[in-house]
């Protein structure tokens, strides 16, 4: 699949039936554009072949692409059942049959008892379940989820994530899951597509992407420092960073002067965000004891260093 939305996005990727591709990247990187182009709501050039048919030549209504919108977009004047039955009925399924199918889908998503409610009577998590049921009931071959967990409470998101993961495992088509949350990308997806500035920055398994992040954004998401040196990217963990208040004399060849920008608790340690004099912002984890001893408060001038043995180097992924 390769598609271009002029001025906004250029992307290529391949996925097999059953794959769940997480799409991550900063705001405005083109994640939603990708989804909307595949759904047929935005014009795109190129080709997106699905079962031998080029989707991009087919109008939205005939694509058989299920789209779960970020804010659900459940029809507010229809009950949950009628929302889910909308897809089958639009394709000519008789009313009774469509209603039965809708209730069955609501049941699979665990919200059958809410069939008679209207969207405004549903909580965020319930509405998202109905929205997923509505997309699946239309029998899509490609399922697109646009930040399905956004705007939900943490607890609700967590249980929805669990269920979604189970449903996607059953789903036989290809799934694209847009998310801004590393947890989604790394726990649900079989592949991760990193989009940045309208291009694909990285495409690989969750493990590859989390261990060798190609962009700053992903590095932050998975909690690593990443620096570029020529064509190489060099990643190291914040726990591997040593913090000194004077220039260190040790063997560490990677050292940066800078100032503490922020301090926050991070598990049992304190996480420093240090703005280095030369440019990049680095994160370093120190023990509370060390922080007190060195007086590491915001504004403090420090030296960071990291041993070469703690740095993983890898080729920057071609865009």
């Amino acid at each position, binding site marked *: 699949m390769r598609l271009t939305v002029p001025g906004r996005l250029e992307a290529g990727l391949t996925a097999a039936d059953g794959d769940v591709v997480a799409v991550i990247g900063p705001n405005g990187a083109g994640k939603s554009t990708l989804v909307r182009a595949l759904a047929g*709501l935005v014009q795109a050039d190129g080709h997106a072949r699905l079962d031998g048919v080029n989707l991009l030549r087919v109008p939205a*209504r005939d694509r058989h692409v299920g789209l779960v919108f970020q804010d659900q977009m459940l029809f507010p004047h229809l009950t949950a059942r009628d929302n889910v039955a909308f897809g089958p009925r*639009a394709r000519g399924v008789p009313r009774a049959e469509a209603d039965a199918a809708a209730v069955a889908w609501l049941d699979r998503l665990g919200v059958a008892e809410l069939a008679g409610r209207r969207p405004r009577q549903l909580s965020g998590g319930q509405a998202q379940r109905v929205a997923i049921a509505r997309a699946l009931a*239309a029998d899509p071959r490609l399922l697109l989820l646009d930040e399905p967990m956004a705007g939900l409470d943490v607890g609700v998101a967590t249980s929805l994530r669990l269920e979604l993961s189970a449903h996607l495992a059953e789903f036989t088509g290809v799934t694209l899951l847009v998310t801004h949350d590393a947890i989604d990308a790394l726990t649900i997806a079989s592949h991760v597509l990193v989009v940045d500035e309208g291009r694909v920055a990285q495409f690989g398994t969750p493990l590859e992407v989390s261990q060798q992040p190609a962009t700053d954004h992903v590095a932050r998401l998975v909690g690593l420092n990443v620096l570029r040196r020529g064509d190489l990217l060099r990643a190291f963990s914040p726990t591997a960073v040593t913090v000194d208040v004077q220039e260190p004399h040790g063997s560490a060849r990677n050292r940066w002067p800078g100032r503490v920008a922020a301090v926050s608790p991070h598990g049992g340690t304190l996480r420093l965000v240090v703005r280095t004099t030369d440019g990049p912002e680095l994160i370093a984890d120190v023990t509370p004891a060390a922080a007190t001893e060195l007086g590491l408060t915001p504004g403090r001038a420090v030296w960071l260093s990291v041993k070469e043995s703690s740095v993983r180097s890898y080729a920057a992924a071609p865009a």
Partner: protein
Amino acid sequence: MRTAPDPLGRPPALLLVPAALATALLVVPLAAMVAAVDWPGLPAQLRSEPLRDALWLSLTTSTAAMLVCLLLGLPLAWLLARVDFAGRGALRALVTVPLVLPPVVAGVALRTAFGRTGVLGAPLEELTGFSFPFTVWGVVLAHVFVSLPFVVIAVEGALRSANPEYDAAAATLGASRWTGFRRVTVPLALPGILAGMVLGWARSLGEFGATITFNGNYPGRTQTMPTLIYVTRQADQDAALALSLVMLVVSVAILVMLRDRWLVTP
């Protein structure tokens, strides 16, 4: 909270005084009119044949005009609100011209088009023997011409304020545009569509300039309420007041119907 002092401070007299004057200017004439009505004689006035004829004509022609406006105006409003095509701005401009056109000019325009010697009126009469001016149908035509832009603009606003993402959702679920229009777009915009229709109806009911210019003033055929009031205002002030009172009551009733859109403080 309503009766609490305003957190931003008292409104200044520099604004309160003109606002009070404006209110007085709008309210006093209506109050004076209601006070001037000859209440004991009112029942007799309301039973008079000219009034009943004119009221019946006004109600039926306005309702017919409203239905035509819905039938033609809703699709046009939808086109303007939901379809992206070259010349959309020009089309909206054309549609809104009659909105600011003086009604008398609208009457003249209708006459040149649908009059007995008009561009369309002449062939129409030759073919069918029917012509619009000075008939009930002429009144309906004048009402439609004047009200349609109101209905289109109001309904377009209602359609625009309904999120087009719902249409997109319907399309991804396999709905054609017609299905989406019927099952999603219209139901979601229904309150606004109804309000637009009521507005159009009210506009028709009060219409005077285009109707009298196009259709003259024939009792029982083209004499609507406003025309009757105009004709009787000099000769029989009590009758004019009685007729005006009826129209005022209707206007207030319309406002009550539209109150959810205009009168409720958001």
